[in-house]
Every structure is written in structure tokens, then in C-alpha cells.
């Protein structure tokens, strides 16, 4: 899962949609990988207004990149090739291969395996307690991905 995706994904549980603590989801035990991708300055410029900078700072901190500026680069800074290169490296090329995402509101754990996050919810979700949900999730986890 790319860091850019982590900046957009929220908890899939309906009750969490309204809670501010459900975003961003928190990485735990993340194993990172760098994957070379073509640098596209227009795409980065297009996506920056939609990035939640606070959320990105939290995520970057959890993954061990503490050197993010305080505020979102805007205006002139978007023409700086080096800034865009750095963002591209963090957002597009950094991927979480293994680990889990945890919702800050309901505590639901989304497993990430081989870069694919499992967002399947057990059908009864939101009614039972959370520990049971995790057990069901693990039982439901597809064998071919493990």
C-alpha cells in the first residue's frame, strides 16, 4: 500500500465515518519497500490540494520519516522540482508491504499482506465486541494471500 493511499483511506465501519479519530488509520509493524516509479510532476501538483497534510505528517512519523515540513507546500513551492521529487518519493514510491492498519475509533485492525490491505468486514460488524471481530477477520482471511 502506497503512502498516498493511506492518506485517503478511512475505516470501513459505518459508525466510524463520523468520528474524527478514524482518520488517518495508524500503521503498526509496518515493513516498507521502495519501488521506483516514473516521476510525474503534474500528478503531484494535481493531488496536493487533496492531501490531508496533518494526516500525512502522522503517517510519516509512524513510518519513520520525521522530516516533513510543518505546513503544506503551496503556491510557488509547487514549482520547486526538489520538493515535488521528495513528495513523489514519499507518496508514490514508499510502500507498506506487511503490517496492519488500526482505526483510532473502533480499534479494528486491517491486515496488509504483500501490499494488499484486507478491508473485508465481517457482516455482523459494529454489534459484537472488537476482540471477536478480529478473530472472525483472521478466520476469514484468504489463504492464497498468506
Amino acid at each position, binding site marked *: 500500500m502506497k503512502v498516498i493511499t493511506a492518506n485517503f483511506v478511512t475505516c470501513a465501519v*459505518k459508525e466510524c465515518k463520523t468520528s474524527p479519530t478514524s482518520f488517518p488509520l495508524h500503521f503498526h509493524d509496518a515493513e516498507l519497500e521502495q519501488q521506483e516509479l516514473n516521476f510525474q510532476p*503534474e500528478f503531484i501538483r494535481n493531488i496536493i490540494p*487533496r492531501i490531508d497534510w496533518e494526516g500525512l505528517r502522522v503517517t510519516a512519523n509512524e513510518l519513520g520519516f520525521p522530516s516533513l515540513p510543518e505546513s503544506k507546500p503551496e503556491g510557488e513551492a509547487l514549482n520547486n522540482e526538489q520538493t515535488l521529487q521528495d513528495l513523489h518519493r514519499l507518496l508514490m514510491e514508499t510502500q507498506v508491504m506487511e503490517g496492519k492498519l488500526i482505526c483510532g475509533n473502533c480499534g479494528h485492525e486491517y491486515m496488509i499482506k504483500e501490499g*494488499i490491505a*484486507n*478491508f*473485508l468486514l465481517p*457482516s*455482523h460488524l459494529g454489534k459484537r465486541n472488537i476482540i471477536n471481530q478480529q478473530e472472525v477477520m483472521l478466520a476469514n482471511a484468504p489463504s492464497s494471500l498468506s
Partner: protein
Amino acid sequence: MSRPEDVLPPDLFYNDNESRKYTTSSRIRNIQADMTNRALDLLDLKAPSLILDVGCGSGLSGEILSDLPSEEGGPHTWIGMDISPSMLDVALQRDVEGDLFLADIGQGVPFRPGTFDAAISISAIQWLCNAETSDVSPEGRLRRFFEGLYASLRRGGRAVCQFYPKNDTQRSMISGAAMKAGFGAGILEDDPGTKNSKLYLVLTVGGGGLQGDITGVVNGMDDVNVLDARKRAMELNNAKGPPQKGDRAWIMKKKDQMERKGKVVKSNSKYTGRKRRPAF
């Protein structure tokens, strides 16, 4: 030919074997590529965008999004959702560029509001018409999907969903659910009436540069006929209005009623229900 939708739920139907067959068949690959390109035409994206691929499978359509030359507005970055682990496994082996999620679109679309520039879905959303357990219904799954999709698209964004409805009921159920979620919706049908007919549900989120209604999407496209069902429905509605008390249709109805009750009723003639002339 039997429909895979009638056989098994999607996560079980597309097992390792079916997923491999689906991805390696050159016939399916060609059809998928054609449909993806058609959907891209309809989305009309001018710059590299963030796209949601609903039911991405093994990434056949995603590949096209990643490889789109810059003259045509690409290459796009995409995030794919699919419910079949085997399909995603094939996608991993093929080293697709998009980010993959194992998720059930009938449970909603777990992204922040306004995330995507556009969404694309090739041969997927008809699966929503199946409910595998008794605690979910097709209507509920469609509603959650379209509401989630509507929220996750940015204002002015578009979604194009190619789908294979089983019959007209499914077709109107799907487009109705999309409209209820707030989308402007239209259906584009390629090669209508033939075996190769393909349906594209074109959805718009308000606030974009689109002038007028949904038919503006196909402006400038060759060989597309616009059939506006709204006008016909309106005329039909007007013609069908209930008979006013005192007019001929109302009198005939009443006379019928009385006759059936066994009352003596004068026979009908060309003068029945006519207005009397004003007497001098």
C-alpha cells in the same frame, strides 16, 4: 450461456483457476481493453488523475490506465478494489502499478470524501445484485456502494461502470440506485440488440464543467444517438391524468358503473357528455 453471477459468489467463483483463465484468455483481454478505452473516452480526463477501479480483478483495465500516453491525459494513478483474493494474487504476479485492496464494494467505499477524480468499473457491479446471506439485500448493497462512491468522488468527477445486467429489472435497479445516491445518470449502449451489446452506466457528480444534463457527456462523440426517456415519460404522465368530473371520460365511467349495478342507463350516442350551447 450460463452467467457466472448465477453460479457462485464472486470471491468463490474467481478461484485460482478461473482467475488465471480470465487473465490469460486473449479474447477476454481484448474485450476488456476495448471497454476500458471506451470508458476512458467517456471520462474525458485531461490530466494525470487519481482513479478508483471498482472490481479491478487482475488489473487488466488498470494496466491501460497506467500506460496511457501523456497526449491522452495519462498516465493515471489508480487504486483497485476487488473481492476475489485469487484475482488480486494474479494481479500481484503481473506486477501492476496500482494499489490493491481486498474489499467488498457492497460494504461501501472506504475513502475520504472527494478523494478521486474519476472511477471506472468494468464488468463488476452486476455482482451487487446477488446477496449471499440473508442479512443483506441487493438493494442495500447497491445503496451502500453508490453512496460510498458518490462521497469518494470529487465534485465534477465522473464514474463509468460497464456492467452486464441479467434483465431489465436489474438494469433499472442499478441505475435507480445510482440516481438515489445523487448521481446524474445515463446509460450508453454500444451495439444495441446484438450479442455483443455493452452497457455503460455513466455517472456524474454535480458541480463540474458539464453544461446541461447527462447527455452532455457524449457531446462531440460520433455515432451516438441520444434517447431521452424523460420526455416520453412526461408526455405519458400528462395523457394519463385522471378524468375531470363532468368531462366525457368521467361520464362514461359513471354510466358503466351504474350499468354494472343493474340500473337503467341511457344508451351512449355522439351527444353523450357534450356541452349544451348557450341558449339565447
